[in-house]
């Protein structure tokens, strides 16, 4: 079993999966940073004046680590940043959930349309579980990747 998880093919699939997810998540945000910045405002975690900077930088970081993961470039750094990003996403989503802030996640697409509060909350819980799974994959890649 341990050998199976250490198998290089499994590592390759994990890198590919995580890489594509990060690239997919970044596209909408890169195209429309203003809407993403407004979504960050709604989390009420970061100071408003910094949110335009975050909205510009975070999606680019997602894109770059997505490319690195797919092409096996700077894999150690990419997986480490992916862990840090996912921990941050988990923190902001969980705090919003605990504080009763029903926010449009903005994780993949910026327009969830007019979801009602129950749907938004359900979405947020789903995203938290997704992030936990992705965090596991990132840790797996980081631990098992060879230095290049």
């Amino acid at each position, binding site marked *: 079993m341990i050998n199976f998880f250490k198998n290089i093919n499994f590592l390759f699939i994990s890198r590919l999966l995580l890489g594509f997810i990060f690239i997919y998540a970044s596209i909408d945000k890169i195209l429309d940073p203003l809407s993403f910045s407004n979504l960050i405002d*709604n*989390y009420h975690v970061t100071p408003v*004046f910094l949110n335009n900077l975050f909205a*510009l930088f975070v999606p680019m970081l997602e894109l770059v680590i997505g490319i690195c993961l797919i092409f096996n470039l700077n894999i*150690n750094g990419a997986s*480490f940043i992916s862990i840090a990003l996912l921990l941050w996403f988990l923190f902001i989503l969980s705090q919003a959930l605990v504080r009763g802030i029903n926010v449009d996640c903005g994780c993949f697409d910026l327009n969830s349309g*007019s979801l009602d*509060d129950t749907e938004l909350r359900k979405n947020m819980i789903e995203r938290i579980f997704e992030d936990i799974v992705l965090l596991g994959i990132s840790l797996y890649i980081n631990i098992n990747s060879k230095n290049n």
Partner: protein
Amino acid sequence: MKIKYKDIIQIIIISLVLSLCRYFFLDDYPLFKESKLKEVGEFSSESDSLLTFINNLKSPTLVDLKTAKLLYDKNFVTFIDARDNESFSEQHILSSINLPYELIEEIVSDYDLEYMIQLKDDFTQKIDINGHIFYIGMLNEDFYLSQSMSKINNKSFTNKNFIIYCSGHGCSLSEDLGFYLHSLGIKKILIYEGGMPEWLDNGFPLNND
């Protein structure tokens, strides 16, 4: 866990350079954002200070629960629910009017409201959103919103000052609607950010249909 600082720094520098490139292709995107909403301090319960505050409003302004409730109790403002009609039908602040942000552009274009507001001539228009009926109009160069015609004809002070709410702190519909109405030339707009969840938690008056 393995950490290679060189890798991390390289990735961050590449991302920063790409972000900078993206920034140069953006129009009207300040690097440091200014909050559009004005924050409001605490109020005494004296009617005079509240009235002065409302009369001096120039742009959408944030109010907290205490001020929102005070304005509600004094009947100084009309509450506008910016959520969709379905959420409004389930529960809303008592006596509020549903003006869904998702439909506002449609309503404005259907009734040519932008032109009518700019014209500043008196008019009244009945709006029906899935059976929720209210009236929009201009009277003596003031924009009115009311659940009944009689209130508009009585030139009620309440119906020309607005406080907009939606689903609480994570919801931007109230702010979006506030700035949209402001762009049409409507000045007396307040945004109650706590919205439905906070109002509900405090046991304040609600309509459950």
